[in-house]
């Protein structure tokens, strides 16, 4: 059963209608990769799935609930299950990095063991080799650190589903491998992953299904069960890395 379902989606940006009534579903424990010729459309699609961009037509349902028919309060229970990681690693500028990381955890769990969460954060920071910036303001940290820390923020909430926009973008090879490693672990734990990425490494390591967006329409859907899945993927001329780190993952 699809945990996330997109039905006849049309999004309007200013006067322009985007997406030609596209439909697809994401099953529980499935990893779906959205690859596209234009990051612009992928970004809008993820923002719509994430509940930030109300569609002009069609529906986005999560566990059967139309997310745009509910108020923010009614969506809190759903939000706790889904973490969204933005491409650019967004932080609240007037909080320290640590306060930013703790914000969703504090909100979700009225009683939480502070030291346990801090340990989890420190372990992830060590794993990703994030410099000691937890007490700093987000303005002082690098783009790469922001990206990794926003990923860590999503991980410590232990979501059932994670939505990621270009998780490897702007990361060095070492951290790309680490991110893929963590995502593989999440996948093995039965989490649902929705990822927008044109990286062959990510597709090869994780994808159960690839949805190929050509401009504003779904051009092709490829399944891991397909005999020639990897060959089909390789034929896409929009991949960012055909010869990459996949053999080492």
């Amino acid at each position, binding site marked *: 059963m699809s945990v996330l379902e997109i039905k006849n989606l049309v999004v309007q940006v200013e006067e322009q209608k985007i997406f030609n009534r596209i439909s697809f579903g994401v099953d529980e424990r499935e990893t779906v990769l959205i690859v596209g010729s234009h990051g612009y459309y992928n970004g809008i699609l993820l923002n719509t799935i*994430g509940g930030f961009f109300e569609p002009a037509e069609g529906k986005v349902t999560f566990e059967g609930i139309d997310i745009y028919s509910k108020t*923010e*309060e009614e969506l809190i229970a759903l*939000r706790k299950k889904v973490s969204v990681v*933005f491409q650019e690693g967004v932080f609240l*500028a007037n909080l320290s990095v640590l306060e930013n990381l703790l914000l*969703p955890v*504090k*909100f979700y769990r009225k009683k939480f063991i502070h030291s346990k969460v801090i340990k989890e954060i420190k372990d992830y920071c060590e794993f990703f080799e994030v410099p000691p910036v937890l007490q700093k303001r987000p303005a002082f940290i690098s783009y790469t650190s922001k990206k990794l820390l926003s990923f860590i923020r999503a991980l410590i909430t232990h979501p059932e589903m994670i939505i990621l926009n270009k998780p490897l973008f702007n990361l060095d090879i070492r951290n790309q491998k680490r991110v893929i490693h963590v995502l593989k672990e999440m996948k093995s734990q039965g989490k649902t992953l929705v990822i927008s990425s044109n990286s062959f490494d990510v597709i090869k390591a994780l994808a159960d299904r690839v949805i190929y967006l050509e401009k504003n329409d779904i051009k092709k859907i490829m399944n891991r069960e397909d005999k020639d899945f990897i060959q089909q993927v390789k034929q896409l001329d929009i991949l960012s890395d055909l010869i990459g780190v996949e053999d080492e993952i």
Partner: protein
Amino acid sequence: MKIFGSIGLGLRTRINNLIEFYLFMIQVLRKVFTFHKQKQIGFIVLLRQIMFTGYEALPLIIFLALSIGGLIILEGNYILGGFGQGQLVYVILVTVVIRELSSILTALIVIARSGTAISTELGNMTINNEINLLRSFGISPISYLVVSRFIGVVVAMFLLTIYFNLAAVIGGWLFSTIFYPINFSFFMNQFLYHLSFTDIIIFVIKSIVFGMAIALISCYQGLKVTAATTEVPQRTIKAAVTSVIAVIICDTIITILFYIL
């Protein structure tokens, strides 16, 4: 016909904006009563707002109030003393400073410092995707950002108006002692004799209503920013101008109502 068309469109936009603001106001006021449920994350924002709006504006408020209070007593003594009506300066101090100027001048300072800051901050947060980030956590931007700022500005505005009044009275006494030596307890007795409970109620109501208007308008305009950084200063100017107009309208209505009732 085109002129009528554009007038009609302009009118429709204004009405829509008013309806939108009204709904925003209702949403904020409703969430004020459930703020305690989210105090764990919103409390720090509230404290920071009170600190910025209230505490950091204090020196300016006190400076202004000391001067205004002093000058009113000085001018009042000079003019009314000539007619043998020196007692009336206390009436003027109460009517002009306590009832009117304290809340109006405090509101203008709060608009200039905090209203513009709130509008700019929320506008930039929208541009930087921070509002969507909060929504992704399931944290309502209204509860986390607006309600805490709303309560912060209202509390700070109320406290600042009290400080303004105290400083204005002390300023009045200080200035009067320079030219006409007067005992502080005598000055205070005279002042309190002319100060009625209604005067206190009026400045309390005004300070709370002005605080609410400034906070609501500034937050609303800040959150109206959509995509471009150039919108931020435009919205900030709009927030300041609309707040000033709203404060003056509210002041007039409250004053008239008190004279009627």
